[in-house]
């Protein structure tokens, strides 16, 4: 037990909209080990954000968790009362979001917002809370934190706001930090600053990090393990090297091929044809079926099983021992190395 911090089993989340039930998460299981940095990649609508909003119990109406369990340190978060969850959020598990401007309260100073969290979860005096808040601002690299303490969010630039968000999230030294597209709204040079900060703090505070992103470059830089999501399901899971150098799922292969390489010869990009499935009426079989180059009859009819290869697993019929050997598929298993 000791090693696993968060364990999600058979999670199912749906949105009950007026046009029907959107099955955003369909039977998702994974875990986060303590101290690791897990990357979650996928396209918009693949369910990566919804999975972690479910974990945080922050889903808004009409979203609802309809099945499964979320064990954090062995306790099921889905069985906690609202009050108990409030004690966990911000203290044990923190989350930062894509847009730092809408996540900060514009009418309170940055300092106030950090102090609030610290006092909510710890029995400390205002003075102590303030000292700790300034220390946090300093840790995330905000220059002259004493004077910045009493600034309002609008006085901060985008990169500094995201740093402030991180300071708030880390102010109670959480065991798990969930970062949902933390750098998407930022410029590349600022993105580099924030990512190296998250990576550094992950080591320094020995907390687990979950990084939700659509950018494979970020995953390669920051994460140790990766989950690839598509159509509300986990398609593949493995170490960062497995995913990039030995992908097993055609979707992962497709993602790797569709991004431009930084090489000097001009090659044509290989897009994944078609569009993601409509989760109002999710397909019976593999959700990637209609976009997959290697699709077989069984893929349309039956949901593939997970096949384990060492620490790596993928949900694809091609990995079945009875599956035909497809040369092109075998070739692309080299991932980025094979120039796939």
């Amino acid at each position, binding site marked *: 037990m000791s090693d696993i911090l968060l364990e999600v089993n058979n999670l199912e989340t749906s949105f009950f909209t007026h046009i029907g039930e959107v099955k955003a998460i369909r039977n998702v299981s994974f875990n986060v080990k303590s101290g690791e940095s897990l990357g979650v990649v996928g*396209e*918009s609508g693949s369910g990566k954000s919804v999975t972690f909003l479910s974990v945080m119990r922050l889903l808004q109406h009409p979203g609802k968790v309809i099945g499964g369990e979320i064990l954090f340190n062995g306790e099921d978060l889905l069985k906690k009362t609202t009050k108990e969850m409030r004690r966990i959020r911000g203290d044990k598990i923190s989350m930062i979001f894509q847009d730092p401007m809408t996540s900060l309260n514009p009418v309170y100073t940055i300092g106030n917002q950090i102090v609030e969290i610290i006092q909510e979860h710890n029995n400390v005096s205002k003075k102590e809370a303030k000292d700790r808040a300034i220390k946090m601002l300093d840790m995330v690299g905000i220059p002259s934190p004493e004077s910045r303490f009493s600034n309002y969010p609008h006085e901060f*630039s*985008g*990169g*500094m706001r995201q740093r402030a968000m991180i300071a708030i999230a880390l102010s109670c030294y959480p065991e798990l930090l969930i970062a949902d597209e933390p750098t998407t709204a930022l*410029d*590349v*040079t*600022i*993105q*580099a*600053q924030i*990512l*190296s900060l998250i990576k550094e703090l992950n080591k320094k505070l020995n907390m687990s990090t979950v990084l939700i992103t*659509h*950018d*494979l*470059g*970020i*995953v*390669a*830089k920051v994460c140790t393990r990766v989950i690839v999501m598509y159509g509300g399901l986990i398609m593949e899971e493995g170490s*960062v*090297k497995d995913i*990039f*150098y030995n992908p097993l799922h055609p979707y992962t292969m*497709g*993602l*790797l091929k*569709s*991004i*431009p*390489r*930084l090489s*000097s010869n*001009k090659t*044509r*990009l*290989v*897009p*994944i*044809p078609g*569009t*993601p499935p409509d989760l109002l009426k999710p397909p019976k079989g593999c959700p990637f079926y209609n976009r997959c180059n290697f699709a077989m009859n069984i893929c349309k009819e039956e949901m593939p099983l997970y096949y384990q290869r060492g620490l790596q697993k993928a949900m694809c019929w091609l990995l079945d021992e009875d599956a035909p050997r497809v040369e092109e598929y075998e070739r692309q298993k080299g991932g*980025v190395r094979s120039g796939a």
Partner: protein
Amino acid sequence: MEHSERLLEVRGLKKYFEKRKGIISKKVEYVKAVDDVSFFINKKETFGLVGESGCGKSTTGRTIIRLYKPTDGKILYDGEDIGKLGEKDLMPYRKRIQMIFQDPYASLNARMTVADIIGEPMEIHNIASGKEREERVTELLNLVGLSKIHASRYPHEFSGGQRQRIGIARALSVNPEFIICDEPISALDVSIQAQVVNMLEDLQESFGLTYLFIAHDLSMVRHISNRIGVMYLGNLVEVADRNELYDNPIHPYTKALLSSIPIPDPELAEKTERIILEGDVPSPINPPSGCKFRTRCKYKSDICKEVVPKLIDVGNKHYVACHLLQN
């Protein structure tokens, strides 16, 4: 590129936005969005413009297509300065220059059918109407990978990638020769981005189009462009051929920018060292004197504070604006 026949040349382009303070409009300050930018684009090539948000790359594009009136400078399109033309004289150029926008949700009128969205420019420019227009809409839809059945639908019935295709079909409806692509793929998912980029390349090939490709995704810009210009706070700091720029960047800002591209290869990412820039981009209202990058540059010296560096030819069609080259 084969021999350089220039389609567009921008000389000393400036675009300042007035910023008024208080209710009684007293002109107080100017936002110098584009401040003395010069470059040219050859026929049938793709010129990439990169930079961080607020560097003026979109304003440059929008000023060239005359959505904004330039504050100063020349926009020579096929030899004629279109920077000062009135609306009426601009009409023929509106047909020759078209634009594709970043946000496929905001750039299509939600109350018009696809047929009307694509057909309207043809009516305005007297290219086709009635049955002919209808045929041409179908033709254009096929060209961008959609079909006739989509013509009577409304934008909300389409996904982001499909909407971007409609935007491209609209731009193509008047047979333009020059298309300004302002972040055409940033709002799309990775797997869809490649579809749209490939299509843009095919269309360029078949219609001999010239592109100005504005983006902040440096790896995609490298993929699609022939030549690339790097902007910082309203200035062009470096211009070169794509491979020359990425293999041999000279300006300290370009170096930092290129090194911060996340590399989708874990071993390579581990090996490459990132140059992490300190601080943020200063405000374009009160930009630093001299070289605008000096506040974040670790090689700055006294001259950077006083003199604005000019773009210098360093050979191999590579231009850099930095005082380091003086010595």
